[in-house]
C-alpha cells in the first residue's frame, strides 16, 4: 500500500487536471470507456508485475498479445473452429509460451531479457506468417463470444455509466494475485526468490519452479489480455497489434511500485499505474492537444510525476528524521 501511494498521488493529480480541463471528461460514458481500457491494460501489467517480482522481465508481452489475439478470429473465422475449442487452445498456447521462457531461463540460465526479446520477434513473426499479414477480424459475427469482453452491466442508481465486463477478470485477477503474494506460501517464496535467489534456494525454496511459474502466468495473462483486446477492437493487423504493449505493461508495474530488482510489488499500485497511462492518453484527446504531442506529454508527465514523488518522499523522511532527532535529544 505504501509503495502505491506515489502513483496514487500522481493519478489523483492527473485526474484533477483532466476533470478541470477535459471536455466531457467526467461523463459516465467517458469513465466507462476509461474503466474498460484500464481493465485491459491492467491485466497485462499484472502479468508483467509477477515476472518483475522475481527480478525478471518479459519483453514478449506485446507479441503474445498479438499472437493470441490474432489466433482467436483466425481460428474462428478462417479455420472455422468452434469457440469452445478456440479459447482453451489459445490460453494453453500462451501458457506454453511462458513455460518455454521459464525453462530456458531456469534450466539453461539464459538472460530473461534475451529470451523474451527473441520471443518478441518470434511470436510476432509467427502471427504474421500464420495469417499471411492479413488482418483478422470477426466480420461482424461471434457477437456472443465477444460479449465476454463487450458486455456492460447497468448499475442501479448510476446513469450513463455501465460497468464493462472486463472489470470482472481484472478485479478477480488483482485480488487473486494480491492474496497470492501476501497470503500464500508460494507468493512468499516468489518474493524471497526475487530479492535473494540464493537465500531462497538455501532455505529449500524451489526457485526454478517458481520462476518458471511466473513466466507462465505472465504469458497466460498476456494471452488472455490479447483475447480481450481483440474482442474489444474487433479486428487486428498482425504486424502492429500489441506493439510496445510490453512497455506499457512494464511501465504500469514500475510506476505502481514494483522494483525491477525484484522482490517488491503492489497490486493496487499496478492497476493505478495502468489507469494513469489511460487517463493521460484520454485527457490529451479531450483537452484537445494534438496527437503528435501525446508521446511527449505522457513522457514528461510521468517523469515529473515520479521525480516529484521521490522529492516528496525525501522531504518527508528528512522531516521525520529531524523530528525524531529532536524528540530524542
Amino acid at each position, binding site marked *: 500500500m505504501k509503495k502505491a501511494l506515489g502513483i496514487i498521488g500522481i493519478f489523483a493529480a492527473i485526474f484533477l487536471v483532466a476533470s478541470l480541463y477535459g471536455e466531457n471528461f467526467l461523463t459516465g460514458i467517458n469513465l466507462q470507456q476509461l474503466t474498460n481500457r484500464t481493465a485491459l491494460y491492467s491485466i497485462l501489467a499484472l502479468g508483467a508485475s509477477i515476472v518483475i517480482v522475481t527480478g525478471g522481465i518479459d519483453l514478449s508481452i506485446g507479441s503474445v498479445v498479438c499472437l493470441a489475439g490474432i489466433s482467436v478470429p483466425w481460428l474462428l473465422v478462417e479455420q472455422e473452429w468452434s469457440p469452445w475449442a478456440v479459447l482453451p487452445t489459445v490460453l494453453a498456447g500462451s501458457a506454453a509460451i511462458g513455460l518455454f521462457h521459464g525453462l530456458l531461463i531456469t534450466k539453461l540460465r539464459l538472460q530473461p531479457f534475451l529470451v523474451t526479446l527473441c520471443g518478441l520477434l518470434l511470436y510476432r513473426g509467427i502471427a504474421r506468417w500464420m495469417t499471411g499479414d492479413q488482418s483478422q477480424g470477426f466480420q461482424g459475427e461471434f457477437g456472443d463470444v465477444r460479449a465476454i469482453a463487450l458486455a456492460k452491466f447497468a448499475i442501479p442508481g448510476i446513469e450513463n455509466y455501465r460497468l464493462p465486463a472486463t472489470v470482472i477478470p481484472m478485479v478477480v485477477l488483482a485480488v487473486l494475485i494480491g492474496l497470492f503474494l501476501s497470503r500464500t506460501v508460494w507468493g*512468499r*517464496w516468489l518474493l524471497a526468490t526475487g*530479492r535473494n535467489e540464493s537465500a531462497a534456494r*538455501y532455505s529449500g525454496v524451489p526457485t526454478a519452479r517458481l520462476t518458471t511459474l511466473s513466466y507462465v502466468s505472465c504469458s497466460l495473462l498476456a494471452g488472455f489480455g490479447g483475447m480481450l483486446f481483440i474482442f474489444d477492437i474487433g479486428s487486428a493487423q498482425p504486424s502492429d497489434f500489441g506493439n510496445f504493449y510490453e512497455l506499457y505493461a512494464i511501465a504500469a508495474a514500475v510506476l505502481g511500485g514494483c522494483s525491477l530488482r525484484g522482490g517488491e510489488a503492489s497490486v493496487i499500485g499496478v492497476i493505478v499505474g495502468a489507469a494513469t497511462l489511460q487517463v493521460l492518453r484520454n485527457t490529451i484527446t479531450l483537452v484537445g492537444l494534438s496527437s503528435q504531442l501525446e508521446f511527449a506529454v505522457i513522457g514528461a508527465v510521468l517523469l515529473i510525476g515520479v521525480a516529484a514523488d521521490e522529492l516528496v518522499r525525501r522531504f518527508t523522511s528528512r522531516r521525520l528524521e529531524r523530528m525524531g532527532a529532536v524528540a530524542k535529544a
Partner: protein
Amino acid sequence: MRGVGRRYAGVTALAAIDLEAHAGEVLAIVGENGAGKSTLLKILSGVVEPSEGTIEVADRAGVLRAVRLDGVRDASRAGIALVHQELNLAENLDLAGSIFLGREPSRFGVLDLRLMRREAAKWLARVGLELDPSTLCEKLPIAHRQLVEIAKALSTEARVLILDEPTSSLSARETERLLAIIDELRAAGVCIIFVSHHLDEVVRIADRVVVLRDGRQTGEFLRGRYDRASIERAMVGRDIARAAPRTSRAGEAVRLVVDSVVGTHHRRKPISFDVRAGEIVGLAGLVGAGRTEVLEAIAGVVRHSGRVTLDGVALEGDTAARVRRGIAIVPEDRARHGLFLENPVSMNMSLAWLDRHSRARLVPTASESSLVAAMVARMQLRPPQPRRRVQTLSGGNQQKTVIGRWMAVDPAVLLLDEPTRGVDIGARAEIHAEVRRLADAGSAVVFASSELEEILMLADRIIVMHEGSIAGEIHAQDATEVAIMRLATGGAPSEGHNA
C-alpha cells in the same frame, strides 16, 4: 561421511574425508582459511554435491542409511540444518517470514500468519532477540541478522545442526548465549557440528575437535586431551607469535578529529574523539552500539552532522572525495559492501591503488600485476592465485582480499569494521602485524570489533560505545574484558579506567 571429496576446476577443496558425528555431541571443525571447512558443511547440508564419497544419516530409529543429499530439501528431510558462513536472508521479508522461509505453516497453501509470528517470537526470544517478528530484515544490523539465521536453524528442530562461524559477527554477550543454547541442545541429544576461528569457544564447548588442512583431516582431539596451543600447532604447523606491546603515541600530532558527529541514519548522540598519528583506536560495544555508523560517517558513506577533520582540514563530500584525502574503510559486510565477487582477486586488490599509481589515468599493467603478486604474498592468500574469482575463495581469504586493497595504498586513516571476521588465528596475527606496521608509519587507525580478545590485542586505546554514545575510554595497559563489558552494558566506569 565416507571418503567424501569435492573438486573444483583447478583445486581439490576436500579429499577423502571420513567423519562421524554422534547424537548429543558437539563436534568442532577447525582449520586455516581455505582448509575446506565450509565446503564440508555445505556437502553435509545438500548445498554442494560431493564429487565422490557417501553420506549416511541415522533415521529416527537410529539405523544408518546412505542418503543422497540433492538440494536443501533432502537435507532438511534428513533432519540436517545449516547456518551459512555468509548471510543469506531475503531482506524484503519480515523476521517471521525469514525464519519460516521454505517451510511456512499453512493451510491449503494459505499462510497461517498468526501462528508464524507467534512461533517466530518464540525462536527469536530463544536467541535473545527481543524484536517484533514483523520487523523487516533490512532494518537489522548484521549481528542481528546472524541471530535471525541461527533462530531459523533452531526452529527446524533438526537432529543435526551445522553452524559455520556463527559467532564471527556476534559480540561477547550473544556468543555466551549461543554457547548456552548449544549446551542445551547437546543435552537434548542433538548432534552439533560447528566451525569457529575462536579457539577459546572451541575449547569450552567441543566434545571433539577435528582439524582440517588443505582439504585433508590432519588431527582429531577429544575433550580434555588438548589445549589451545596444540590445536593451533595442528592447524598452522607452528606456534603463533604474540605481538610485543607498542610504545605510547601520546606525543604524536593529532591526525583525525571527530567532532560532535551524528549519523543521520539511526539518530545517535553526538560522538567526539580524536586519533593521533600512529595510534590504533579500538571501538568496543555491544551489537547495535553504533560503531559501524561512526566509521561510516567518517568515511562519508552515510550523511552526518558535525565535523570530521584530517590533519586540520575538514573532510567533506562523499566517500570518493574522502578516499582521495587518504581515508580508507574496510566494511563490515564484505560480500555486500567490500567485494566484487565475480571479479578476480587482482581487480579487487588493485582498485584503490590504481587511482594513485596511474599515469594519465592509464592502468600501469605491469606494475599492477607485480603489486597484486606482492599483496597476495603479503596477505598470505590461499590459494595464491591472483586470477581466481573472489567468489571461489573461502570466507577468510575474501576478508584478506578486502584488507589487502587498502594495505596497498598506505592510507592516512584506516577504518576497519570487524577486520578479522572469519579470519583464522594465524592470518589474524598477520593482519594485526600489517595494521601495526601501517600505524608505525604514521597512519591513524580506528577499528571496531565485537571480539574483546581482538580489541585487547590490537588497540592502544579503547573507546567503548553504548547505545549510540561514548560510554568511556580505556588505555590498553589498563584494559580488561571485565572493564570493557561494564562500560559496554551501560554500567558505571570503575576507578582508574576512565579516560
